[in-house]
């Protein structure tokens, strides 16, 4: 009781002090938020007949009196829809079990097998602190946590920057360590073991739902184990150089070493006979180490009423995936408060050495194999347009619409029998819509 009295007295005193000083609480709050910048966005990403994703971001940045910068970012996303399971299309309907191992799904003849089980919500929180010490040195420390139903990722990173030659050159070196753990729905399947497939009984029951029957010998969780994990260590070295009054350039070298479980526990591979007919469906398996190198170059050029931003990235790794990415944005200012910005991106990658669109029954089982098109040969492009407007109160909003298409390619694999007449490398088409608000 006494405590309550004290609290009342304290708040009364605080109120009186504010009244005397002429600073109502609301005004004080506004003063505190004045140093903060907020960037918010909502994004929709939708693939034709496949995955769709809604994502929200709140990014808050505070610049302190000593020029140190505190940043905190919250990301929420929710994903639903279907994802290619890795098995090849067949001239007849195919039955698969769901990851839980308790249900099944049927894929029509001639169609790329898609697993429509995916429903996930992800929450990501990250924070960073940039501290300048002396006139030309800066250090940044950051933490990151991301969690999903079956996935947890924890990260720590540090970046050191040094300005040289009247700040015309900046050298940077960063190190990041990430720990990821995955606890797949239904357990982690043993790599390259057969998926246990139920028999489809039809949908003749009262609810009209598909019914499946499992083999008598089937035991729940067979050929499956518990959770898995991996660690990622990244090193990044960079040089930023002011070239002229209108131009600046950045060059980064990145080394990334990943150790641990990198298999996708939900992806499958078809084992086919010489006529291309599926004889078995097995879980994929990927190597448990990967070393990646990336070379990134970016240039920004200021015209009187426009900014050209072009970047190129070359990446290569010991999975034998080489990729080239060209990303460009052209911002045209329409007066002082509006701009439009076309966006063009082109991406090309070679296939991982263990990529196989399917396995031939006659061949010995390889040590690793994945039919995931994302580690196969492909090209992709993005075309987009953004429009932004600055309002009278200084707040800004922008809308962005983009089209993204992936075109997987045959990396030189023969297609026996019926597979020759089926589309094994269907394109993936997606739209991206985004709304930003800055205040």
């Amino acid at each position, binding site marked *: 009781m006494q405590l309550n009295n004290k609290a009342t007295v304290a708040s009364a005193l605080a109120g009186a002090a504010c009244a005397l000083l002429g600073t109502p609480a609301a005004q004080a709050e506004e003063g505190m938020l004045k140093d903060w910048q907020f960037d918010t966005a909502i994004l929709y990403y939708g693939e034709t007949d496949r995955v769709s994703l809604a994502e929200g971001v709140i990014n808050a940045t505070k610049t302190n009196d000593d020029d140190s910068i505190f940043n905190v970012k919250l990301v929420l996303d929710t994903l639903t829809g279907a994802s290619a399971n890795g098995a090849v299309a067949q001239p007849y309907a195919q039955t698969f079990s769901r990851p839980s191992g308790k249900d099944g799904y049927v894929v029509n003849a001639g169609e790329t097998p898609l697993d429509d089980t995916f429903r996930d919500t992800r929450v990501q929180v990250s924070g960073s602190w940039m501290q300048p010490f002396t006139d030309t040195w800066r250090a940044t420390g950051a933490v*990151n946590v991301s969690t999903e139903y079956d996935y947890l990722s924890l990260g720590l990173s540090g970046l050191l920057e040094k300005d040289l030659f009247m700040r015309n050159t900046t050298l940077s070196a960063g190190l990041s360590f990430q720990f990821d753990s995955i606890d797949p729905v239904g357990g982690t399947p043993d790599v390259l073991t057969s998926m246990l497939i139920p028999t489809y009984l039809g949908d003749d029951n009262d609810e009209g739902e598909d019914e499946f029957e499992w083999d008598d010998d089937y035991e729940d969780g067979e050929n499956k184990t518990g959770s898995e994990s991996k660690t*990622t260590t990244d090193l990044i070295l960079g040089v930023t150089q002011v070239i002229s009054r209108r131009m600046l350039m950045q060059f980064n070298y990145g080394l990334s070493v990943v150790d641990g479980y990198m298999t996708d526990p939900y992806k499958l591979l078809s084992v086919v006979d010489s006529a291309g007919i599926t004889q078995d469906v097995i879980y994929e398996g990927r190597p448990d180490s990967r070393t990646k190198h990336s070379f990134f170059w970016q240039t920004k050029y200021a015209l009187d009423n426009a900014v050209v931003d072009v970047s190129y990235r070359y990446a290569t790794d010991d999975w034998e995936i080489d990729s080239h990415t060209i990303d460009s944005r052209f911002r045209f200012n329409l007066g002082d408060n509006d701009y439009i910005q076309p966006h063009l991106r082109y991406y090309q990658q070679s296939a991982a050495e263990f990529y196989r669109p399917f396995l031939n029954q006659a061949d010995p089982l390889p040590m690793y194999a994945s039919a995931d098109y994302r580690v196969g040969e492909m090209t992709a492009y993005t075309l987009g347009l953004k429009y932004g407007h600055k309002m009278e109160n200084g707040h800004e909003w922008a809308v962005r619409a983009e089209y993204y298409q992936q075109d997987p390619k045959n990396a030189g694999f023969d297609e026996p029998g019926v597979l020759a007449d089926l589309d094994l490398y269907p394109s993936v088409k997606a739209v991206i819509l985004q709304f930003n608000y800055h205040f």
Partner: protein
Amino acid sequence: MKRKLLAFVALAGVLQLSGCASIGVQPWERDLLAKDEMALGAEGVDLGLDDHIYFSKEATSGGRSFAGGGCGCN
């Protein structure tokens, strides 16, 4: 021959260095570079969202910043 080559390399090096001297700007010439849209990480939220999409759909990530891990994206 070797000496000539060495002299050529040294000359090329000096030319490179003197070339570097004309690179960059004086502090009062930063009017355009100081604009928000000229920052290398301008539109950071867009870049973060794009990274998440391409990280999930392609085999390469990072370059601009850490390649990271981060999600079990499908």
